[in-house]
């Protein structure tokens, strides 16, 4: 493969006209280009970089390149020095300050300049102005994508403080926490805030596939590697090149694959399934699990060396029951989200309803809370979500367990929120209710229709209005449930 490439390379080089006007070519591109010799002195810059920095190319020939671009690259080690010493091209983000004292966010690509003889002749720095991208990114995701993660509690604030630190390095991150605590969101936020953000973020669930398929999924395979492998498959490691590979449920990774992952982490190379040629990748690994990996190591279910390799940076996400200050925040967030998505006119939860919600233990954490809110907003036909609009499984469980989300009574009584999320404090709504037997969705919907029809004295138009449905939808449902 490499030989073929280099032959093509030589051929292409020879095919290029020897008196090609490269300067005009460089001037036509919409990126800044700076060419420097091995002593880091400027050979030339293109027109775009003249505009970006405010320097004329004639006046800065022979000047130290860093004096022209005035970047903050020195704070990231010495990437130019590394490019000069190696064959590798590097991409990293930073900024420059131009002649009019403006700080411009830049994506730098530093490549070594090689002569056709293979000798190192210096480096080329490509500068891409990413001001617009940064503006757009902050509008969509907020700084570093953290805004998708909600939390005011002390434990979450600690996580928020750690996120930028973990984003700055390439070290492996292990995210632990119970199911539904937001491990995926945190992994994505780290990727978005890192220098790898322009490259792919690929998630692989290690528990979702059997060992043989998982190996092919991760490392790819060559044609004919096994029955059904009719073409080459690149695999997730190769697809994530330059970016981040997020291996979730890493605790469920089979032992033979643990060895292969360890090798990739150490050598940054691997053999695809059935392949004889090594593939090099530059991938940052983030892993997550809800299992106790330390315990797994003791039981021999997880390799100790891999555990230490993955556990360089550790983030532990607290369960919802330990995030007392975040319960209302999350509840209101999901309520507003589903109300908007489903175009409902619901004003909020009744106090009785909120009492049930706040005394539940949420073994499924935030995911479970989200699902409960989604169900309630879907089911509720009125302006206020009542206990009967909550999932029956939740009502069937004993309330006020010792592990419930702890918060004061005052928090439950808290009423109208600025943005419309509210707790209805009507005494009528705080009446005790009878916990119905758990029933299926069909039964619930049927009961809702019957109740509406009873309330409106059999008037279908008014019942449809009450349910927030069209008349034809109500008619269809009545027919479906045989309520005619």
């Amino acid at each position: 493969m490499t030989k073929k490439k280099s032959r093509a390379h030589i051929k292409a080089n020879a095919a290029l006209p020897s008196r090609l006007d490269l300067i005009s070519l460089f001037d036509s591109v919409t990126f800044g280009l700076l060419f420097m010799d091995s002593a880091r002195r400027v050979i030339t810059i293109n027109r775009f970089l003249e505009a970006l920095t405010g320097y004329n190319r004639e006046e800065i020939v022979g000047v130290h390149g860093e004096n022209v671009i005035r970047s903050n690259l020195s704070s990231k080690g010495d990437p130019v020095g590394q490019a000069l010493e190696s064959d590798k091209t590097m991409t990293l983000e930073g900024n420059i300050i131009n002649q009019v004292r403006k700080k411009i966010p830049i994506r730098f690509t530093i490549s070594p300049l090689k002569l056709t003889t293979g000798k190192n002749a210096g480096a080329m720095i490509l500068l891409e102005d990413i001001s617009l991208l940064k503006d757009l990114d902050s509008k969509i995701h907020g700084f570093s994508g953290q805004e998708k993660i909600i939390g005011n509690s002390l434990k979450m604030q600690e996580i928020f403080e750690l996120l930028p630190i973990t984003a700055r390095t390439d070290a492996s991150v292990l995210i632990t926490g119970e199911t539904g605590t937001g491990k995926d969101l945190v992994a994505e936020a780290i990727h978005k805030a890192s220098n790898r953000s322009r490259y792919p973020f690929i998630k692989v669930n290690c528990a979702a596939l059997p060992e043989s398929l998982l190996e092919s999924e991760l490392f790819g395979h060559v044609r004919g590697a096994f029955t059904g492998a009719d073409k080459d498959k690149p695999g997730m490691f190769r697809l994530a090149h330059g970016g981040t590979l997020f291996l979730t449920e890493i605790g469920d990774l089979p032992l033979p694959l643990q060895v292969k992952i360890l090798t990739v982490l150490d050598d940054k190379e691997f053999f695809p399934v059935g392949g004889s040629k090594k593939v090099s990748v530059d991938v940052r690994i983030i892993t997550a699990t809800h299992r106790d990996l330390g315990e797994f190591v003791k039981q021999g279910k997880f390799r100790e060396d891999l555990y230490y390799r993955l556990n360089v940076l550790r983030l532990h996400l607290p369960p919802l029951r330990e995030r007392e200050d975040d319960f209302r925040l999350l509840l209101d967030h999901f309520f507003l989200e589903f109300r908007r998505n489903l175009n409902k006119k619901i004003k909020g939860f009744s106090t009785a309803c909120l009492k049930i919600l706040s005394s539940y233990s949420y073994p499924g954490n935030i995911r479970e809370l989200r699902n409960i809110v989604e169900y309630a907003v879907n089911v509720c036909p009125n302006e206020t979500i009542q206990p009967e609009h909550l999932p029956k499984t939740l009502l069937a469980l004993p309330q006020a367990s010792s592990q419930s989300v702890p918060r004061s009574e005052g928090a439950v009584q808290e009423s109208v929120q600025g943005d419309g999320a509210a707790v209805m404090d009507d005494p009528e709504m705080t009446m005790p209710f009878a916990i119905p037997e758990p029933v299926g969705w069909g039964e619930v919907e049927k009961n809702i229709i019957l109740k509406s029809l009873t309330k409106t004295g059999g008037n279908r138009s008014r019942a449809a209005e009450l349910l927030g449905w069209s008349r034809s939808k109500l008619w269809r449902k009545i027919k479906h449930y045989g309520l005619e």
Partner: protein
Amino acid sequence: MKILLTIYKNEIAPRFDQSSEILIAETEGEKISGNPRIILLPGTSGEDICGLAIKENISLLICGGIEETHYQYLKWKKINVVDGVIGPYEQALNFAVAQNLKPGMILPGASIYWEKS
């Protein structure tokens, strides 16, 4: 007059907020009085250098690229700033003492091709 220069090796540091080394010199008329002091800073921070310039009663600050915020702050604190200077700091200091240093100046020693051109 007290002059502060942000330096890197023998040159003016390319960027004010990335400098970790400064030189403070005092002048009397058109001569440097005493020995200039070189101070190594614990880190790189534009704010720290601004603070130091005020504390040291600096009248003139010579640097490379500087952000508008820092520039305006120093001006507000009545510190004269000559920025965008490229070249050896000794030359910069001599030009400043002789009152010939201008913002954006590329000094003769900045380029290896200076003598040839």
